[in-house]
């Protein structure tokens, strides 16, 4: 009975996906538009990194950290680590690669937040939407990331943009999930209080639900950024420039030393991004 599975011809799922991708590629105008949007955002961030002199940047990053975290228990060690880490990256000659990597991560994360937070809100408001979106998110996260590279190239060409897209798909689920969770966890009596005083649905969202879900949303933002960063090496296989590219080349040339230094630079960036986003979510007073 069960061996019926091998008796019938294999289901043509692969063919269906091929057909779908082929059909999608026929929508040139649409994908070109998206490509230029993403390239525009990425370019703007990259331009910002390029115009600011490196020494100034090494001062600005700790300054920004201090500004964001001064009220939330800032550790001096983080400031010291940032200065030392950035100096090391400069010294190793990875500065531009580093900025390219950060630009990719920030672009992907920014788009993930812009799309993911409203989607999370929608999920929280409707059980039906939650029932549909949840498995899609599981799928997005568990499908091996390499698989996204193939249609990404077909639709968006080679370079940073398909890198951003594949990072986006891989990194968006946490912020959607955590926004949904955060809003659903707002205590029922606070929702009742907001309703009892005549809040509209929008006022309730802006004044009560999102502020109270903030901690959870920020934890999602943190995870999203980390996942986006974890995609940079993978994305370099389709031509995304940056530290990932250096690692990928080192693997190709069996160059352990340079592979390690580029990897170390990624670790430094990861720690800086993680600590900043994590600290903003560990808000004391709420």
């Amino acid at each position, binding site marked *: 009975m069960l061996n019926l599975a091998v008796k019938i011809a294999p289901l043509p799922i692969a063919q269906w996906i091929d057909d779908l991708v082929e059909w999608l590629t026929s929508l040139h105008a649409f994908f070109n538009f998206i490509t230029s949007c993403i390239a525009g955002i990425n370019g703007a961030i990259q331009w910002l990194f390029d115009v600011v002199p490196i020494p100034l940047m090494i001062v600005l990053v700790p300054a920004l950290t201090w500004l964001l975290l001064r009220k939330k228990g800032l550790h001096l060690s983080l400031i010291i680590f940032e200065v030392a880490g950035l100096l090391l990256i400069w010294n190793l000659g990875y500065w531009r690669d580093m900025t390219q990597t950060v630009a990719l991560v920030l672009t992907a994360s920014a788009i993930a937040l812009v799309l993911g937070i409203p989607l999370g809100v929608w999920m929280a408001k409707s059980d039906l939407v939650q029932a549909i979106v949840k498995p899609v998110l599981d799928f997005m996260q568990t499908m091996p990331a390499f698989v996204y590279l193939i249609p990404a190239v077909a639709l968006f060409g080679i370079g940073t943009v398909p890198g951003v897209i594949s990072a986006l798909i891989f990194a968006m689920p946490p912020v959607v999930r955590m926004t949904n969770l955060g809003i659903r966890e707002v205590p029922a*009596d*606070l929702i009742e209080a907001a*309703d*009892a*005083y005549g809040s509209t649905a929008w006022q309730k969202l802006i004044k009560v639900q999102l502020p*109270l879900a903030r901690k959870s949303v920020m934890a999602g933002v943190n995870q999203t950024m980390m996942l986006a960063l974890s995609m940079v090496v993978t994305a370099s296989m389709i031509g995304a420039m940056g530290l990932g590219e250096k690692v990928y080349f080192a693997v190709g040339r069996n160059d352990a030393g340079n592979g390690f230094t580029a990897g170390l630079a990624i670790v430094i960036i990861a720690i800086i991004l993680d600590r900043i986003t994590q600290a903003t979510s560990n808000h004391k007073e*709420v």
Partner: protein
Amino acid sequence: MQKIEARNLTKIFGGHVKQVREMLAAGKSKKEILRATGATIGVRDANFSVEDGEIFVIMGLSGSGKSTLIRMLNRLIEPTSGSVLLDGEDIAKLGRDALLRVRREKIAMVFQNFALFPNRTVLANAAYGLEVRGEKPEVRNARAQKALNRVGLEGYENEYPHQLSGGMQQRVGLARALASDADVLLMDEAFSALDPLNRKDMQDELLELQAELHKTIVFISHDLNEALRIGDHIMIMDDGAIVQCGTPEDILTHPATEYVARFIEDVDRTRVITAGSVMTRAYTVNIDSDGPYVAMRRMRANQVSTLLVVNADRQLLGMIDARDTMKLIDEHRNDVQRLDSIVQTDVPTTTPSTPLNQLLAQFAQTALPIAVLDEHERLRGVVIRGAVFAAMARREVPSNA
């Protein structure tokens, strides 16, 4: 004047409304209906009215439907059927915008677990209702500040709720309700989460505020002592239905059902029953017209050893006893007309509205009957020890006052 009137207000949770109605009409119990349809009856056919400016307490055990009922008054829970008239307007039929307006301007609510917004300061919490209705920041902050001052929270406006004690948090909840300047306050077990001392303070404060503001307050409680203390009327619910509605004394003296009787069993009656309802007739002499012979005759006739002395307006002057009166007669024989020389002025007194628990304290210091005087110092009656104990033991309260 009636402020709120509920007519046939019903809430059935879980659908099957038609079938549930038929089963209700057939007299089936809540349990049978749940088993047959899976539907729960929150409230069934509630009819009651709340007077303008009164504190109306809804009581019942948990699961009796009181929380559901109060939430139907501002439609946090949609009634299945029936109507709620607020100033003659049916809340149950309002459209979305009209309902928002009612919630913003006419009905405010105070919650059991305070339901303060943890991300907002005390001031911003108190101003919430004004904020959502679109008042300018200066206006809403000034009014929120006024409400906070009123509940004794000056100086705490920039704190966050979690920095305050439970009692203070509920004051913020009360200030939030007062700031919106609604006529109607819904208070859902507002003081139940507080410790007993705090609860009593808050009850006192609510009564003080009420004396000044004359809001219409619907107050949910499961604590009968609280209900008796603050309620002008009390409505008792059981299993979603109203079993009795009346004044505190009504409920205590004439419980409608076995359920109510059990409910009031543990109540501290000395807090509710007043001197006015246990006092008996006072035996008196009029100092201007009665002399010692009249006094003696009256004592013998009524078999008492003391008489209260009043003037022509029945204002209390003091007391005489049999021994002094006899002595006065023996010493002066026929030439004495007045009793002034033997009047003792240290007579214990009280007012008709004094609860028995305070009288007990007085009885601890004197064996004499306590004279009950009205606001014009006129004698209305006396309370004797025996009557107090009889009332406490729930025997028929003497009513020949």
